C-alpha cells in the first residue's frame, strides 16, 4: 500500500462510523437524526421487541392479527411468526429466565413493579426472586452475529492470515532502527502544527485549562449524581455515562486522537487544582519524592486494571450509581495522593490504569507528539521540554522529547509545545500502528499488560453471556463455594488461560525457528505487542454494541441526570431508538475484528523482521503466532456471536 494512503485509513473509518449512526437503514427505519429532526416525540417510534425485550425503532416490523409489531432483527420476527401466542400471552418473567413458560393473568398472578414497569409472577417465591434483583430480569438478550456471517468471517480470517504469511518480508535479517525522532521511510507524517489555527489551538494554555476545568466540573457532576441521585441505574446518568459512553469513547478517542483523554483527564485536573488551592502562601505542597524504584514499571496499573475488572463485573458496579461514583472518587484519590507525595505526575506514569491501557493502545493511534528537528534539539542547552520553564511545565512523565520514540508514556499534556524555546515540537498525523512498526524498547511489563488486556477484554464480553452464568454456577456447585468465589476463580482461569496458551505458542515459535540468536523472553515480549490490535478492535467491537444500542439514553438523562424528575433541556421524556440497526451493528463489529486481525498479522511481520533471523526461520517462527492470532480472532468472533445480556433496560 502506498505510504500516503495509509494516512487516510483512520479518516475512512471515522466516516464509516458516522455513516452507521446517521445513514437510514432499510426502507422504514428511523435513525437518530430523523428522531432529532422530528423533535423526538416521546416514545413515538420506540417499541418493545416482544421476543427479546429490546427497545427498537421501526426498521423491522410485522402486521399480524390487526396489530403492528416491531423487532430488532429478522431472527426475532421469524420466532414471533412461528409461535405468536408464546410472546403475546403474559408469562412469569422468573420462569422465562429459567427457560420455562408459565402463563399468568391479572387475576391469579403475583404483581410486582420496577422502574414503572409492571410484571406478573406465577408464585410468591418467584415474586420474591424478582424483587431481589429486578434489574436482572429487565436485561434483554441481544442476538449475536448470525451463523453464516460467523463462518464467512472465519473463512476470511484464514484467507487473510495465509495471504499475509505468504507475503514474506522483502528484506531479511534485522533492519536498522531509525534515529531518534526520525520517521521510518514507510510511515509518512503530517505535522498539524503547520496549520495556523491548529497550532494556535494546541499552544493555547488558557484554552486547555478551560477544557480541563469543564471536564473536572462534569466529573464532579457525575460523582454527585452517583452519590446523591436516584439509585435506579436507568434513572441516573452516572452508570450510563461512565460504563457505556466513556469506556467505549475512550477507545474511539485513542483510535482517532491518541492520548487526548489524558489531555483533558478530570482526575488529574482536579488533583492539580486541589493541590494549587491547598498550597498556602504560594509554597508548593507536594513532597516531590521519587516513585519507589521497585514500582518503576506498569505493574501497579496492570494490577489496578485487574482489580477494577473484578469489581466492575463481579459485583455489578455498572448497575450501581453510587458504586460507580465511589470508583471515580477512588481514581481521583489515587491521583491526588500521588501528586502530594511523588515527583511530577508519577501516578499517570506508573499507576493509572486508564493512562497505561490507553498508552499501549496509543502505539496504534494516528497522532504523535515528537521533536521536529533533531539538529535543533542537539543545539538546545536548556532542555526546557524536559525541565520546564515559565512558559510550560516540566514533562510530567519524565519523557525527553528528542529521544521519545513512542506514545506509551506521553500524556499529551502539550506543555512541551509551550516550553520548547525553539518551536521544535510537532504534532503529527501518522498511519495507524506506526509505533508498532518499529518496537524501540519492548518491555516485559508492557507485554504482560498487553496480554492482560487481550484476556480481560474477552472476559468482559464473556461475562455478558449465558455461558458465563452457567459456568460460575457449575464452579460454585462443584466446589461448594459462593458466587463471588466462583466468579473470582473463573476470572483467574480465563485471564491466565490465553497467557499460558500464548507462552506455549511462543515456546513453539522458538523451537521452530531453530535459531539461538533470539531468546524465549525476546519472542514472548515482542510478539505480545502484535496482539494489541486484536485486543483493541475487539474492545471496540464489544463496546460499540453498548454505545450504539444504549448510548442514546443519555439524551433523556442529560435533562434529568439525578433522576429527580427534572427536565433541564426538555428531553427528559425522550425515548430514542438505538443509534443503528442490529444487522448494521453486526457488520461494523465483524469489520472491526477483521481489521484488528489484519493489523496484528502486519505487526507480527514487523516484529519478525526486526529479529536477526534468516528467511525460513522467520517464516517458521511466525506459524505458531499465526495460529494464536487466528485463534484469538475466532474467539472474538465467537464472543460476538453469543446472545449478549444488555444493560439498557436496567440503565
Amino acid at each position: 500500500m502506498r505510504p500516503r494512503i495509509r494516512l487516510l485509513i483512520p479518516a475512512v473509518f471515522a466516516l464509516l462510523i458516522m455513516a452507521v449512526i446517521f445513514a437510514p437503514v432499510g426502507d422504514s427505519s428511523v435513525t437518530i437524526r430523523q428522531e432529532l429532526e422530528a423533535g423526538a416525540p416521546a416514545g413515538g417510534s420506540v417499541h418493545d421487541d416482544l421476543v427479546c425485550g429490546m427497545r427498537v425503532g421501526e426498521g423491522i416490523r410485522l402486521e399480524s392479527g390487526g396489530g403492528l409489531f416491531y423487532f430488532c432483527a429478522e431472527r426475532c420476527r421469524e420466532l414471533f411468526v412461528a409461535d405468536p401466542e408464546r410472546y403475546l400471552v403474559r408469562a412469569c418473567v422468573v420462569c422465562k429466565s429459567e427457560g420455562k413458560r408459565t402463563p399468568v393473568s391479572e387475576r391469579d398472578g403475583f404483581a410486582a413493579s420496577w422502574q414503572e414497569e409492571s410484571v406478573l409472577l406465577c408464585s410468591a417465591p418467584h415474586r420474591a426472586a424478582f424483587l431481589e434483583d429486578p434489574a436482572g430480569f429487565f436485561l434483554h438478550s441481544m442476538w449475536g452475529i448470525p451463523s453464516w456471517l460467523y463462518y464467512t468471517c472465519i473463512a476470511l480470517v484464514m484467507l487473510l492470515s495465509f495471504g499475509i504469511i505468504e507475503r514474506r518480508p522483502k528484506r531479511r535479517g534485522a533492519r536498522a532502527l531509525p534515529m531518534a525522532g526520525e520517521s521510518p521511510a514507510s510511515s509518512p507524517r503530517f505535522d498539524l502544527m503547520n496549520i495556523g489555527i491548529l497550532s494556535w489551538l494546541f499552544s493555547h494554555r488558557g484554552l486547555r485549562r478551560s477544557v480541563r476545568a469543564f471536564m473536572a466540573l462534569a466529573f464532579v457532576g457525575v460523582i454527585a449524581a452517583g452519590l446523591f441521585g436516584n439509585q435506579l441505574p436507568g434513572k441516573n446518568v452516572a452508570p450510563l455515562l461512565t460504563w457505556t459512553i466513556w469506556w467505549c469513547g475512550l477507545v474511539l478517542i485513542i483510535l482517532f486522537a491518541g492520548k487526548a483523554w489524558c489531555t483533558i483527564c478530570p482526575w488529574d485536573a482536579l488533583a492539580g487544582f486541589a493541590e494549587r488551592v491547598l498550597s498556602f502562601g504560594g509554597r508548593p505542597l507536594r513532597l516531590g519524592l521519587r516513585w519507589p524504584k521497585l514500582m518503576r514499571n506498569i505493574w501497579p496499573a496492570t494490577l489496578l486494571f485487574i482489580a477494577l475488572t473484578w469489581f466492575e463485573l463481579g459485583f455489578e458496579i455498572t448497575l450501581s450509581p453510587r458504586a460507580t461514583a465511589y470508583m471515580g472518587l477512588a481514581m481521583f484519590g489515587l491521583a491526588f495522593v500521588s501528586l502530594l507525595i511523588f515527583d511530577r505526575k508519577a501516578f499517570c506514569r506508573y499507576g493509572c490504569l486508564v493512562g497505561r491501557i490507553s498508552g499501549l493502545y496509543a502505539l496504534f493511534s494516528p497522532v504523535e507528539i515528537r521533536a521536529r528537528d533533531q539538529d535543533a534539539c542537539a543545539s538546545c542547552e536548556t532542555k526546557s521540554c524536559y525541565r520546564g520553564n515559565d512558559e510550560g511545565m516540566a514533562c510530567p512523565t519524565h519523557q525527553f522529547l528528542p529521544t521519545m520514540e513512542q506514545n506509551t508514556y506521553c500524556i499529551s499534556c502539550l506543555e512541551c509545545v509551550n516550553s520548547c524555546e525553539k518551536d521544535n515540537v510537532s504534532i503529527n498525523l501518522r498511519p495507524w500502528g506506526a509505533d508498532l512498526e518499529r518496537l524501540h524498547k519492548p518491555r516485559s511489563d508492557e507485554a504482560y499488560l498487553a496480554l492482560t488486556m487481550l484476556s480481560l477484554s474477552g472476559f468482559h464480553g464473556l461475562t455478558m453471556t449465558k455461558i458465563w452464568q452457567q459456568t460460575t454456577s457449575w464452579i460454585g456447585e462443584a466446589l461448594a463455594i459462593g458466587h463471588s468465589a466462583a466468579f473470582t476463580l473463573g476470572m483467574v482461569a480465563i485471564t491466565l488461560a490465553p497467557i499460558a496458551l500464548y507462552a506455549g505458542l511462543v515456546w513453539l515459535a522458538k523451537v521452530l525457528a531453530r535459531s539461538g540468536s533470539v531468546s524465549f523472553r525476546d519472542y514472548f515480549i515482542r510478539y505480545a505487542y502484535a496482539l494489541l490490535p486484536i485486543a483493541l478492535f475487539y474492545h471496540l467491537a464489544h463496546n460499540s454494541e453498548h454505545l450504539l444500542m444504549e448510548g442514546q439514553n443519555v439524551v433523556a438523562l442529560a435533562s434529568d441526570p439525578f433522576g429527580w424528575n427534572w427536565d433541564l433541556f426538555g428531553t427528559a421524556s425522550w425515548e430514542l431508538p438505538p443509534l443503528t440497526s442490529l444487522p448494521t451493528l453486526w457488520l461494523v463489529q465483524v469489520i472491526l475484528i477483521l481489521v484488528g486481525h489484519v493489523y496484528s498479522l502486519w505487526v507480527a511481520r514487523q516484529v519478525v523482521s526486526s529479529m536477526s533471523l534468516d528467511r525460513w526461520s522467520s517464516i517458521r517462527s511466525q506459524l505458531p503466532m499465526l495460529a494464536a492470532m487466528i485463534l484469538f480472532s475466532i474467539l472474538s468472533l465467537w464472543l460476538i456471536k453469543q446472545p449478549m445480556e444488555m444493560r439498557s433496560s436496567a440503565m
Partner: protein
Amino acid sequence: MRSLARPGLIAFLAALILAPGSAEAHHIMGVPHYAYSEEYPQTPVLTYKVLAGRYDLRMMGYPGKPKPGETCTLSVVIQERESRETFPGKVYLTVREDVLVGEDPIIYGPMEALWEDGVFKFSPNLPKEANYIVRVHYQADGAPWDIDLPMTAGDPGSPLATLGIYLGALLALVIIVRAIRIKLDRRAAAEAKE
C-alpha cells in the same frame, strides 16, 4: 452488589470470597423482598408473604421503616395452605445487624413469639440507623425453617458519612504532607545558613 457504599469495602469483599457457600441442612428461604403499602395514609407497613413448605407465611411490620431506637411490632401468621389452620408450634425471632465486614451481630433474640389469636407477635427494637436481618425460625414437618426479612432503621444508605470520611482522610493527608514540607523547608534553610 448495590451496597458498596461503605468504608471497609475491600475487607468485606475479601470476606465474601473466602466465605463458603450456603450448605446448611435445613431450609433457608433466602433474603426475601418486602414491600411498603405506599398508598396507606399512615406510617408505612412492611408486608411479606412466602410459601414455606405446606405453610403460607405472612409477616407484617409496623412501622415498616422504624426510626433508630423505635420499637416496632412484627406480626407473623403461619397457616397450613389447604386447611388454613394456624401453625401449632413455637416460633422464634432473631434480629441481626447487617454489617459489611465480619459476622452479623445479634441485637435481639432468639425470642419466642407471643401468640395472640393466631398471630405470632414480636416487638424488637432496632437501636441505630442500620440495615437489619430479621429471621423467623420454626420447626415444621421435622425440619427447621428460617425466613429472613431485611429491615431498615433510618437511612443508612446515605453516602454523606462515607464522603465525609473520604474528604477527611484526604485533608488529614494534606495536613501531614504540609507539616513534613514545612519541616523539610526549615531544615533546608538551616543547612543553607550553615
